[in-house]
């Protein structure tokens, strides 16, 4: 039983990897960016667990800026993904412009909230 699951898992990862190699580089860059953001968020959560939640607003803004960045990047990824049929009539340029606007708002708020 355990063997079969592990085999299945191996097969699964194989197919996952193969599927992922097929994705265009633009999306890969986005994925990298998302992973970077999520990773930073996790580090901050761990840091908060160690030093305590005193400047809570700073913690919040730090973590939320990471999460926000990640979420927005995911949204962008969804929109520029050519396989996604839902957004055919949405030009990638438009999607990117929206993304930039969204990020600007996000970071403005973060700076406001940081201090």
């Amino acid at each position, binding site marked *: 039983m355990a063997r079969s699951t592990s085999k299945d898992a191996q097969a699964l990862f194989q197919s996952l990897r193969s599927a992922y190699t097929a994705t265009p*580089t633009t999306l890969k860059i986005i994925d990298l960016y998302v992973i970077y953001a999520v990773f930073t968020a996790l580090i901050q959560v761990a840091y908060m667990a160690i*030093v305590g939640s005193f*400047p809570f607003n700073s*913690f919040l803004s730090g*973590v939320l800026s*990471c999460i926000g*960045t990640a979420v927005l990047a995911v949204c962008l990824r969804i929109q520029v993904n050519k396989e996604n049929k839902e957004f055919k009539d949405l030009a990638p340029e438009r999607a*990117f412009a929206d993304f930039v606007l969204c990020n600007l708002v996000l970071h403005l708020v973060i700076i406001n909230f940081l201090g």
Partner: protein
Amino acid sequence: MSKSLVVFTLITLLPFLCYAFSPENPTDRKVLVLLDDFAIKSSHSLFFKSLQSRGFHFDFKLADDPKIALQRYGRYFYDALILFAPTIERFGGSVDSAAILDFVDSGHDLILAADSNASELIREIATECGVDFDEDPAAVVIDHTSYTVSETEGDHTLIASDDLIKSDVIVGSQKIEAPVLFQGIGHTLNPANTLVLKALSASPSAYSANPKSKLSSPPQLTGSAISLVSVIQARNSARILISGSLSLFSNRFFKSGVQKAGSPTKYDKSGNEQFSVELSKWVFHERGHLKAVNVKHHKVGETDEPAMYRINDELEYLVEIYEWSGKAWEPYVADDVQVQFYMMSPYVLKTLSTNNKGLYHTAFKVPDVYGVFQFKVEYQKLGYTTLSLSKQIPVRPFRHNEYERFIPTAYPYYGSAFSMMAGFFIFTIVHLYNK
């Protein structure tokens, strides 16, 4: 006008007293003396003379003189009133008990002497001031142990009392050695009444009864509960002296020697003169009258008074307190003046330190609580006028930009937030050029 002098102290009592006790010309004071008959003027002349020598002007009137008046159009003619008319049933003119009480309530002083046959009117005035004379009209204070030894073995109604109030302010700093002679009616005070004080109390063996009739039931007033002479300081600082004996102020008692029964010492002169003169000084505000001026507070290192403090500010509080000496305001020196920083309950309680020139001062830190605070000085000392200063001052929390910034603990968060922004820029460039 005089109100504006002390208006910032926000107290209700001080402004009233300015009518009676004017710091501008306090030595020139008019006193109305109401007498049963003019014989009293001469029989009590020593007492009056001592007052006159201190700058008081007397206006002697018969109590039933139809022309007497205390005020006209709301202006009082006199600064004080001496009522040496124990038997009067009705005053002449427009004066009645209510008028006399109004006179007191507007801040004027009163010396009232009753006697064994005191009238209803006198009793009513006394009651209104918190002094209850023995209801039995014929009763006098009798004391079979501390009476004065005299030529005739009397009915022990002439009492020699030395149970004086222990207050230098009221009876003077010089100790009254000889006992005080007293002959008259006793009274009691309500213990809950905080305004009235026993200046001269009877000994524990005294009682109040009619000496001519046989004692059928136990007397109502007994022992040291009986007060012979009481002083009252009303809330507006008007001072009242009520004595159960008119002859206490008389020349005869002033001059007569005294020997207390059972005591070997015989004094050539009774303590009456010293006692009544010192008491009159207190009653006429020559002693124990305080004033507080120049209440100031400011942040440490500044001189201007702010409209509002912030929590955790360091501040200084200053007040000047003076005492009236009979001629001039002199610095009041004490080490028990306290200031409260008060909001529903005192958050800070500090004893003020003085520089011996009347200036009191302290510094403290505003508590970490915002709200509308008051600087409160509630100074109530036996015999002194009550000082009650309160000054309202709001304490606000931090402004939005007064909080701590750039906390070291938070640097990783700042770092991550800025790294996200940097990441965004890099990503933008990469994303755009990758196409």
